[in-house]
């Protein structure tokens, strides 16, 4: 089980702030988890598809597509940041 979080425009477009997800077989990286979410279709595909400006953090550190994801992790998806 991983905790998946969505922020800002992604949270609104997906209608989801947070969900607990059982990692499917073979999903061990950020890229694989994102592809799994995209495979749900609909808004998931539109919002998270390749080419969209999506940033990912694993356990509150910025992550890359190859960053490992394992049960117990917190994985957050969000748009490029706009603070300050």
């Amino acid at each position, binding site marked *: 089980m991983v905790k998946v979080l969505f922020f800002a425009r992604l949270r609104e477009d997906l209608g989801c702030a947070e969900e607990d997800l059982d990692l499917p077989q073979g999903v061990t990286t950020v890229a694989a988890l994102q592809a799994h979410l995209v495979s749900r279709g609909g808004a998931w595909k539109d919002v998270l598809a390749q080419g969209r400006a999506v940033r990912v953090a694993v356990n509150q550190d910025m992550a890359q597509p190859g960053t490992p994801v394992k049960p117990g992790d917190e994985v957050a998806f969000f748009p490029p940041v*706009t603070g300050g």
Partner: protein
Amino acid sequence: MPVRVQSQDFDAGAEIARLREGDPKVGAVAAFIGIARDVNDGETVATLALEHYPGMTEKALERIVAEAHARWRLIDVLVIHRVGELRPTDQIVLVAVTSAHRGDAFAACEFIMDYLKTRAPFWKKESTPQGQRWVEARDSDDQAAGRWQGPKADVG
């Protein structure tokens, strides 16, 4: 605690006074205050909602402050960033840096703001006469942060 994320306003004068209170080694204070404007990208902005990622935001800011300490000779740093609903003329962010000499304080203050704008998980949503819209990240902010990378910047 050099980093605070809060909804309430701050008193920059009082914060700076506290930051350098009783420390005779401080010879310079550089501070930046970011303020909400009433226009962005040609639209009138009535309100600004600031969202953040609790936990990661503080961690990211603390990492930026630690990196500033590693690059320059600093005495202390304070970062306050507000979240929630803000209006034009409201203060958004305070970065204050103390050092013995001005060069370190000026550079570190600008570095912290440039990194904050590209690495700390905050998002702005504006209310305009046309409705609400999320503020888009700017390439110019990435370029500003990029100035501090590379071999030259690391010498500082």
